[in-house]
C-alpha cells in the first residue's frame, strides 16, 4: 500500500537558541535547541530543516537549509535535539556554534513512523547516524508500554552512540560493528535476520534508519519474512516542505502512486519499506 500524506499544517518557522552542542561519540555531535513549539508537536521520524548560519548572519554559504531528524524531544522543557556529523559545509557550520547561538529552524516536517497499538514485537534497526531518530521513537514506544529491541550498527565502537539513551526506555540493545570492536562483528542487518527468526512475522514490526544500501537490505529481509517494516530515508532536499520538488523517491514497480514520484519531504522521510526503490539518493 502507498504511504499516505500527513497534513503538515502544524509546521512553523522559529528562531531557536542552541542549548548545548557536544561531541557524544567520535565525530558525532548532539545539539539541543530551545524549540517549544516543535518539541510539543514533533512525531518520531519527523525532521527539522535548519539554516546552518546564525539567524542574524549574512553569510550566503551554505545557500540551502540542511535537514536533520529530530533525535529527542522534551515537551516540558521545550527543547529538541539533533544528532549530527561533520560531512560538509552545512554541518561544518554547525560545529562553529557556541551555546546561545540562535538558529532559524523549520519544523516539524515530513511524515513520521506509524506506531502500532497492537503489542507487536518491535525492532528498531539503525546504521551509523541512522540512530538519530531512534531515541524519540523509543520514547514513544515506551509510553505505549510496548517492549522493543534496538539493533545498533556502527563502523566501530568509538562511533557508537545511543546505548544508554535507549536503555532508559527499556530497550534491549544488540550491537554490531564492522570491526567487531563492540558486539557482533559484521552488519546490523545480520542481527535483524536473527531477530526475525526469534519472532512471529505477523506480530512483528521493524523501524529502520540508515544509509540507503542498509535500508535496501532491511527491506528485502523483511519482505522475504513477511514482516512489516518502515524505513526513514535521507535524500538531498531543497526546501523540506514541498515547494521545490527536489526530493523525488521512486515508488517500487506496481505501487499505485498516480504515476508520480514520492516527495521525501512530504510523503516521507518514512516510507513503508516495500513501497520505494533504493537507488542512491545522496548527491
Amino acid at each position: 500500500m502507498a504511504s499516505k500524506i500527513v497534513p503538515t499544517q502544524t509546521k512553523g518557522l522559529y528562531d531557536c537558541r542552541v542549548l548545548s552542542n557536544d561531541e557524544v561519540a567520535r565525530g558525532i555531535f548532539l545539539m539541543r535547541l530551545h524549540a517549544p513549539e516543535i518539541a510539543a508537536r514533533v512525531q518520531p521520524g519527523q525532521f527539522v530543516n535548519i539554516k546552518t548560519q546564525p539567524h542574524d548572519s549574512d553569510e550566503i554559504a551554505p545557500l540551502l537549509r540542511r535537514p536533520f531528524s529530530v533525535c529527542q524531544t522534551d515537551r516540558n522543557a521545550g527543547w529538541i535535539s539533533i544528532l549530527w556529523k561533520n560531512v560538509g559545509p552545512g554541518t561544518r557550520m554547525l560545529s562553529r556554534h557556541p551555546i546561545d547561538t540562535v538558529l532559524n529552524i523549520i519544523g516539524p516536517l515530513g511524515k513520521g513512523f506509524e506506531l502500532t497499538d497492537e503489542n507487536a514485537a518491535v525492532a528498531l534497526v539503525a546504521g551509523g547516524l541512522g540512530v538519530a531518530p531512534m531515541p524519540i521513537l523509543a520514547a514513544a514506544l515506551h509510553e505505549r508500554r510496548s517492549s522493543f529491541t534496538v539493533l545498533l550498527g556502527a563502523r566501530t565502537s568509538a562511533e557508537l552512540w545511543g546505548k544508554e539513551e535507549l536503555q532508559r526506555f527499556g530497550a534491549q540493545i544488540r550491537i554490531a560493528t564492522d570491526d567487531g570492536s563492540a558486539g557482533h562483528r559484521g552488519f546490523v542487518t545480520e542481527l535483524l535476520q536473527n531477530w526475525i527468526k526469534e519472532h512471529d512475522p505477523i506480530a512483528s514490526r521493524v523501524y529502520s534508519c540508515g544509509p540507503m544500501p542498509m535500508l535496501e537490505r532491511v527491506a528485502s529481509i523483511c519482505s522475504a519474512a513477511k514482516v512489516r517494516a518502515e524505513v526513514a530515508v535521507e535524500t538531498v532536499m531543497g526546501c523540506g516542505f514541498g515547494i521545490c520538488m527536489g526530493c523525488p523517491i521512486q515508488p517500487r514497480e506496481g505501487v499505485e502512486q498516480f504515476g508520480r514520484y514520492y516527495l521525501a519531504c512530504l510523503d516521507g522521510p518514512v516510507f513503508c519499506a516495500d513501497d520505494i526503490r533504493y537507488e542512491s539518493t545522496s548527491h
Partner: protein
Amino acid sequence: MNPLRIKIARLEFPNPVFVASGTFGYGQEAADLANLSALGALITKSIGAQPRRGNPHPRLFETTAGLLNSIGLQNVGVQSFIQEKLPFLRAQRVPLIVNVAGRTIDEYEEVVTALEAHEGILGYELNFSCPNVKEGGLEFSQKAEVTAVATARIRKLTKRLVIPKLTPNVTRVSEIARAAESEGADAVSLINTLTGMAVDIETWRPRINTIVGGYSGPAIKPVALAKVYETAKAVNIPVIGIGGIRNWQDAVEFFLVGASAVQVGTANFVDPRTAEKIVNGLQEYLERKGLASIDELRGGLRVEKRG
C-alpha cells in the same frame, strides 16, 4: 495611497514582489509558513496539459552561491490543478498568475484554454524556457520567431495578462522581448535559469540527472540585472525582474535598472517569508529616500559618465 502599488496593463497589484514559478509550489505547501496575502502575486509551478512525473533523482545540487536544478517540470497537469489546487488558491487573498509550460505551442494553447473557463486567474506566465520538440529541444524563447508565434497564438485566446517568461541563454534577450511585445504580450519576465552543470569528481557523474540543468540563486544576479537592463531599455511593456533576489536591496537594484516588478525564486526555499520581508524593506527604503512610490525608483539608474 499605497506607494508599492503597481500596474501591469490595466491590472493593479498590491506590491511588486511576486514569488517565482516552481519555487512556491501551488501556495498550499507554504501557507502555514508565509503570509500569502503579503505577496504582490503568486506564480504557480509550471502547469502542462498532462501530469508529468518529472526527472529522477538527483534533481538539485548546491553550488557556490547558486543552485542547479532539473525538476523536469513535474506537475499535476491542468485538470487536477483546476480540481485540487485552484480552489485553495482562489480562497487566498493573493493575485494569482498561472505559469504555463508546453512541449509544443498546441500544449500551451490547450492549458490556457482549459484555464480560461475558471475564475480567479489574473494572467498567464508562459514558460518559454521549455524545450521545443519541433526545434530539436531548443528553448522556445531562444528564437524570436518562435516566441512571436507562440505569444500571438496565446494572445488570441485570452483577455487575461499574457507574460512570456524568457530564457537568458540567448545572444540578445532584448530582441526576444521585442518579438513578444510586438505580438501583444502585456509584460515579459526574466530571467529563467541559466544553463549550468557540475560534476562529481569521484564518481565522474553529473551532479544532476539531466547532465546540464537550470542555474539559479545569488550567483546569477549580476547576469539577471544586465539582461533586465538591456530589455527594459528595449521595450515599452513592463519587465518583471528575476534572478538571485534574496533581500530588498537586491530588489532595489532590479527596479533601478528598469524592472516594474520582481520575483523571488530560490530564496523561498531558504526563507518562504522572503517576499514579505522585501515588501517591508522597500517601504522603509522609499520613506528614507523620500520617494512617493516605486515608480520613482524604476529606471532611476544614474549613468552619466564621471571621473
